[in-house]
């Protein structure tokens, strides 16, 4: 059976208290969820505002409404993936892609 937050959970049951590395991994996931999650959500909103074929105000509102769904998925991902590193990579990679897409659309096209 896969343990909730990666293999480190096993250490807990042996020693009785969570190990320091387990705690660090949890903190890392929490930080990824809050900050990298917000970054991904914000980038989703600005890409939607830029790319959606609608009048400006409508595209902005749609982007903002979508951003919370992106945030939700990002947070769930941070705690569903196997390791804390995966949480960061899984959010920063799509963020970088969205950021690059936004930059290309804004300054190159």
């Amino acid at each position, binding site marked *: *059976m*896969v*343990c*909730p*937050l990666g293999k480190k959970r096993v250490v807990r049951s042996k020693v009785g208290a969570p190990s320091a590395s387990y705690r660090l991994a949890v903190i890392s996931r929490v930080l990824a969820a809050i900050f990298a999650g917000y970054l991904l*959500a*914000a980038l989703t*909103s*600005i890409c*939607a*505002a*830029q790319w959606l074929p*609608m*009048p*400006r*105000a*409508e*595209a*902005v*509102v*749609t*982007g*903002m*409404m979508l*951003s*919370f769904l992106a*945030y*939700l998925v990002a*947070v*769930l991902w941070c*705690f*569903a993936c196997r390791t804390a590193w995966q949480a960061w990579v899984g959010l920063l990679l799509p963020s970088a892609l969205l950021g690059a897409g*936004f930059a290309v659309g*804004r300054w190159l096209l």
Partner: protein
Amino acid sequence: MKEGFRQAMAWLHTWIGLLFGWLLFAIFLTGTMSYFDAEISHWSQPEIPLRPLDSGASVELAQGYLQQHANAASRWFIGLPDERAPALSVMWQNPGKPGERGTFVRKLLDPQTGAEVQARKSLGGEFFYRFHFQLQMPYPWGRWLSTAAAMVMFVALISGIIIHKKIFKEFFTFRPRKGQRSWLDGHNALGVLILPFHLMITYSSLVIFMSMVMPVSILTSYGKDTQAFFNDLFPAANAAKAAGSPATLAPLRPMLAVAGEQWQGGRVGRLVVNNPGDANASVSFYRHGGDRVVHTPGTGLLFNGVTGELESESALHAAPLVIAGSFYGLHMGHFAGPLLRWLYFLCGIGGTAMIGTGLVMWLKKRSLKHAQTGVLPFELKLVQVLNIASMSGLMIAVASFFWANRLLSTGFAERSGWEVNVFFISWGVTLLHALVRPGRSAWREQLGLGSLLFVGIPVINALTSDYGLTVSIPQGDWAMAGVDLTSLAVGVFLGWAALKTFVGVGLPAIAVGQTKRVKPIAGKPAPTAHEVH
């Protein structure tokens, strides 16, 4: 679905539910009360008389009053009375010094006579409404914190759904008087039964504050001119500057009639007069929130203030704006009639109870281990104290607010602020009480006191004012009577809950005995993932 994924979601649900549960309980409780904010305000300012509604006469009286008292103001705001809020409210903004916003003055008028109503100072329902999203913190921190709590609630809801393999089967599973299991079943039933309400209310709270918490796309699309975004959204808000040459303001009553025709019988909620007495005067009429679901601030009818002619109508048509406005409107529930309003209220109670059962369950599960000694380790004691103060303590604080409203002298200048102080002081005292008393006694004493205070609300109302149940019911003043009767019902419920603490709900030692009895009856081999809470 993989078992590991579900367990990870259970872990997430459990811990964010614990950390934000106390705050979310308070947000949900005060939000639920806010569906009856106008009724609570009516209860807390009973001096405002109930009059037959006549918006034409009200507008005329308001114009007369404002021309007499606020002729030099830069803007007038007139709020018309409706069946929920009986007062005719007038507000004006004094012209500010260059670069500064002018100050606002607000008065409540009797819609029959046009005289100022000398009502006791009280925030009433406005206090609970403001607390619901500002949390008594300075701007904008309270709004940010409550929106963050909403995002956490959103994650908790979705992870909660994921945990449940058999969402419908479990809904029909309720095992009463089975300790831990009953709490879990209740938590699940409350969650699933009104799941659409939970999802709507949580997501819409994010939409309401989206331009505050997720503003980057406004900046990238509009640059520094963020005001242009709001002007695109709310076109009627653009008002012309004063010309500086005086002109007589046209009578407002005929404009009201035109507005009624334009909206085919729709009601006018409020109107704004820009630059009254100036050649560039304009009057905006905004529709009553009860007329439709979609919340469209700033859309309305614009009249020329000197000629009295209708100049333009602004409305929302673009789909994304209508969707956002619908979420806003659904959250606020201004459109809801009495039946739907009660349904909103009951759903709100359901949400509050779901959060409360979750908090209780977290502690019960973990205190089982300490049943032998009966002594909780520090972290569990901390959770217990916060559970007690955030739930039964908050109920005591709410009831104290109502008591303060009737007991503080009506002439006391600072009374409105002191009602709020009494609320927070009594909440603080319940926290201290929960700290020094053993858990079960603290629950019992606070629930018992809360029960007495709530049952006492109609009593103190009848004793200290002329608006007790024996008066309000024959008069048909159902807002006044409704607050009294609801308080009575809440008091009875809290009393029942206090009695339950005598028969072993919440006591570790008995909870152990119960689980031993329960297992063979329920016939379940081992707790499955969805029970990992």
